Each structure stands twice: as C-alpha cells, then as structure tokens.
C-alpha cells in the first residue's frame, strides 16, 4: 500500500537516548542525533569508543551477532526501525552500507551489482542499471571493458568503489560508510571523498572516520564520540553540530583537545 510517498521529515534518521549493549556490556550510551537529508554527517573520535557500533545500529547490522540489543529509539523517516513489525531486511534495503575492508562478492563485477538488484525484484534493464551504478560510483570508465572479470581482480580502491556501486544500485535513501577509505592509499581515498560529494546530491551519507582531516574536509555535520568518562567504558556523542563550528569553535574542552590534536 503506497501511502504518502513524499518524505515529510527534515531529518532522515533520528536517535533518542540510544544505548547499545553487547550482552550486559553497554558499548554506547545516551546518543541523541538528527541526521539531515542529503548531507554528509561524520562520526569521529578515538578508536574503541563505539563509532562503528553506533553506525551499525542504523541498519540493524549489530543483530547479526548474538547478544546485542538496544534501548532507546532509532527512527527512519519518522518510523521506529526496531519496532517488532519491522523487517531488518527491509531496513537494509533502504539504508545501505559500505564496509571498512572492501568486500565484493567472489562474482564478476557485473554480477556483484546484478545479483543485489535481482534479489530485490529488479525486472528492468540490468545492463543499464549496472552501467548507471558504476558511473555514479566513478568506476564505469575503468571497468566497462571487463565487466565479466571477477570483482576481486580489481585494486583496493576500485573494489571499494564497486562496493559503493553495488550499494547504490538498489537506490537506498541513506548510505552508511564505515571507515571506507582506511584500507586505501591516499589517492584512492581522495577519489572516495570526491565521490561522496557527488553522491550526497541524491543520498544521505553517514560516515565513520578516524581521519579528522577527512571529516573536516568532506562533511557537513560532525558528531564527536568519546568514552563517556569517569571509568565508564561506554561511548557517547559528546558534541554534534555543523562541521565548521565543531572544528573552529567547539563547545566542549574534550572536543577541542581532540580536534586540535592534543588528544587521540
């Protein structure tokens, strides 16, 4: 039943007092964020404070591992994605993900995209879809003559762009990126960052990165994550706002220490 298809929220994803648990261990605590549509939001912070865990809560990927649970609210287009009637498969159809280490399927470049589209019932012209996805990922020119070679035969940077092409082939509304360039060389990293600027015209992007300069360069909003302190080992977002402000005029001393390099 198609209801009102026009999204009527300014914020695509919102969290409210979000807490994430591994068994009884609270990994993330008290997160309140609003992710704006068609913007790039970066989550930064020192390693071990739960950035990836937080990101994976947005597409319910944490559930793949036994014993994880959340408390609080995560909404997508105003709807609670953890509600009992919600299918995680559907969530991941609309909120896509690119992983830290490129993980193309051991199939051909063509099939990586085609299989993904096919399982979601794509009945249109597959060649066109593959081409358009690869173009959007800035990979088409490099692979157009070898579409039937294995995805694993590409370089690291190319593999990651293939994973991006794969993710956007099913037109998600949000793309989650978990340190997408950390396994890549600087030139490939730059290309990914340029790609993100193009992609944000059509998609909302949330990126986790440990590279501060990358966050400062590429993102519109930044969330600063840290261990909540006083012996607690849960991470929390201690500050969230426009990137410019965070990096030039942070409200919290810990944020300031981090972005000026004094800490982390």
């Amino acid at each position, binding site marked *: 039943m198609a209801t009102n298809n026009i999204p009527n929220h300014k914020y695509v994803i919102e969290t409210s007092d979000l807490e994430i648990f591994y068994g009884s261990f609270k990994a993330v605590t008290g997160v309140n964020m609003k992710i704006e549509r068609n913007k790039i939001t970066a989550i930064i912070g020192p390693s071990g404070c739960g950035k990836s865990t937080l990101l994976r809560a947005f597409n319910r990927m944490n559930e793949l591992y036994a014993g994880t649970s959340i408390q609080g609210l995560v909404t997508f287009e105003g709807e609670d994605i953890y509600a009992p009637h919600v299918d995680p498969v559907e969530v991941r159809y609309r909120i*896509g993900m690119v992983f830290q280490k490129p993980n193309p399927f051991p199939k051909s470049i063509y099939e990586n995209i085609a299989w993904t589209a096919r399982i979601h019932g794509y009945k249109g012209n597959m060649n066109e879809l593959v081409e358009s996805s690869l173009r959007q990922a800035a990979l088409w020119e490099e692979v157009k003559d070898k579409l039937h070679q294995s995805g694993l035969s590409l370089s690291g940077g190319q593999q990651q762009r293939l994973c991006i092409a794969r993710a956007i082939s099913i037109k998600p509304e949000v793309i989650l990126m978990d340190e997408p360039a950390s396994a890549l060389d600087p030139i490939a990293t730059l290309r990914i960052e340029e790609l993100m600027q193009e992609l944000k015209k059509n998609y909302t992007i949330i990126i986790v990165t440990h590279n501060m300069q990358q966050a400062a360069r590429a993102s519109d909003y930044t969330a600063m994550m840290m261990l909540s302190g006083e012996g607690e080992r849960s991470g929390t977002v201690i500050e969230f706002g426009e990137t410019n402000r965070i990096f030039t005029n942070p409200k919290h001393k810990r944020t300031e220490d981090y972005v000026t390099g004094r800490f982390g």
Partner: protein
Amino acid sequence: MAGLSLEKTFEKKASTSNLRRKTRWGETFIQALLFFSGFFSIFTTVGIVYVLGKEALLFFQMPEVDLLATFTTTEWKPQIGKFGIWPLLNATLMTTLIAMLIAIPLGVAVAIYLSEYANPRVRNTLKPILEVLAGIPTIVYGYFALTFMTPLLREIFGRDVVQIYNTASAGLVMGILILPLITSMTEDALSAVPRSLREAAFGMGATKLEVALQIVVPAALSGIAAAIIVGISRAIGETMIVAVAAGAGPNFTFSPFTGAETITGHIVRISGGDLSYDSVDYNSIFALGLFLFFVTLTLNITSQAIVRRFREVYE
C-alpha cells in the same frame, strides 16, 4: 672459597670447549628410528599394492578366469567358472546411490542449518549427537538395518514386494551412517567462508536464505564437492551393513527390494567360510580387494585435488 671454584669451573669450560659441532650418536640413532617410523606407512601401501596385486595376478592367470569377461559378463558363479564382476559391482553402485540420496541432501542441509541458522546452544547440543552417530560401529548399523529398516520397508511397501534381504534397507541405513561425515566436512567448508562476505550480502538487504544459498554455499562449493566424494568413497567400501542386510549371493538386478551381494559383502562371505589357499575363491578376494583399493584411492585423491585446485579466493 665458593666464588673461586666457580671461576675455576668456567675457566675449565672455556679452555676445554670449542664451538665445533659434536657428533651426537644418540641423536642420530633416534632420528633414524623416527624416520623409520615415518617411512613405515609406505610399507603398508606398498604391501597393499604388492600383495593384492600379486594374488590378483594369480587370479587372472587362472584358466577359468578371463580378464575381458570379468568386466563384460553379468554372472558371478565361481563353481561354474563364471566371473563377471557386474552383479557385485551393480549391487555396490545401487547401495551407494541409495545411501547418497539420503546422505547428501540431508547432510548438506544439516550443515547449512548448523552453520548459518542455529544459535550456539543448539549447535553445542547437535554437534555431539552427530559425533555419536559417526562413532557407532557399522555392525550395529547392520543390525539396525536388518531388524528395523527391513521390517519397516516391508510394512510400507508390502511383504511380497520387499524381500528379507534387500539393498534398499542397507542403502538407507548406510545413508544415515555417512550423513555425519558429509555434515562435518561441509560445515568446515561453510565456516571457512569469511564473515565479511556474509556481512556484505546482509548489508545489501539480503535475507538469511539468500545469503546462505546464493553467497555462502557457492563460495564453499569445492569443500562441499570434496565432502560428497569422500562420502561416496566411504559408501563403496562399507562392508558390515551390506553383509548383514543386503543379501548373500551375487544377483544382477535393478530392484532395490531384492537381495544382492556387493563387492565387500562377497569378500566377507567368502572369507568367513572354509577357505583353502590358492583356490579360485581365495584369489578372487584379492582381485576384488585390489579393485576396491584403486577405486577408493582415486576418489580420495580426486577429493583432495579438488580442494587444492579450486580453493576459492574470497579476498
């Protein structure tokens, strides 16, 4: 006083020792012993090939036996000099086929369930059960085939259709015997598929089934193929289940409900009776044994080659 003597000891050491390599006879002797132990297994293989080969040769050299006829005729009646291998081979193939029809789908299904679906508690209860199934001696399975499976089949299909000794019963129970083997090898292959591959598929919004059947299983295919081949090899060499339940007496038939003797069953029956050395029967054991050895060896080598050659590259 003590300090002085310690000095003296080290002094002594310095003056008498040099860094040249000492010949240690004890070490060399032990190393030779260990090498012999390692080499011993070669004797076993050489023994098998030589001994079986020699006697098999005697068999084929006997006046009653014609090599071509062995593989082309379908009667095995030593008393009248007929040595067509097909009745025995056919029964072996039938029991193997029936066993595989059970063991492959069920074995792979259980492996997929264990690897992709089951939670740790279920896995920890199921895996020991599979180990128990695998550890039960085959004669016990034979008893089961004769006293449970055959009456069951006779109930289902009728007493006049299913004979008391039949290959279906033996084949089905053999399938149960081999199932744990296939499950464990398949599960190993599935577990070897890296987690990142599953994550990629889940991240694209695939269902659990799609991930399991369209991503993980194809990625583990060489391991699964190897498991199946090993299972077939096991079925061909299985003896006691068929000896007890399949029938005594070569019988060339395609009906699984009648009795027939497999190669292994035949060997056991012949050697269980009065056997005089160098009789035709005695020598035939070796010919059949040699055949078995080469068939299973080929299957096992193929299985290892498949794993080596087609080992999937995931990353």
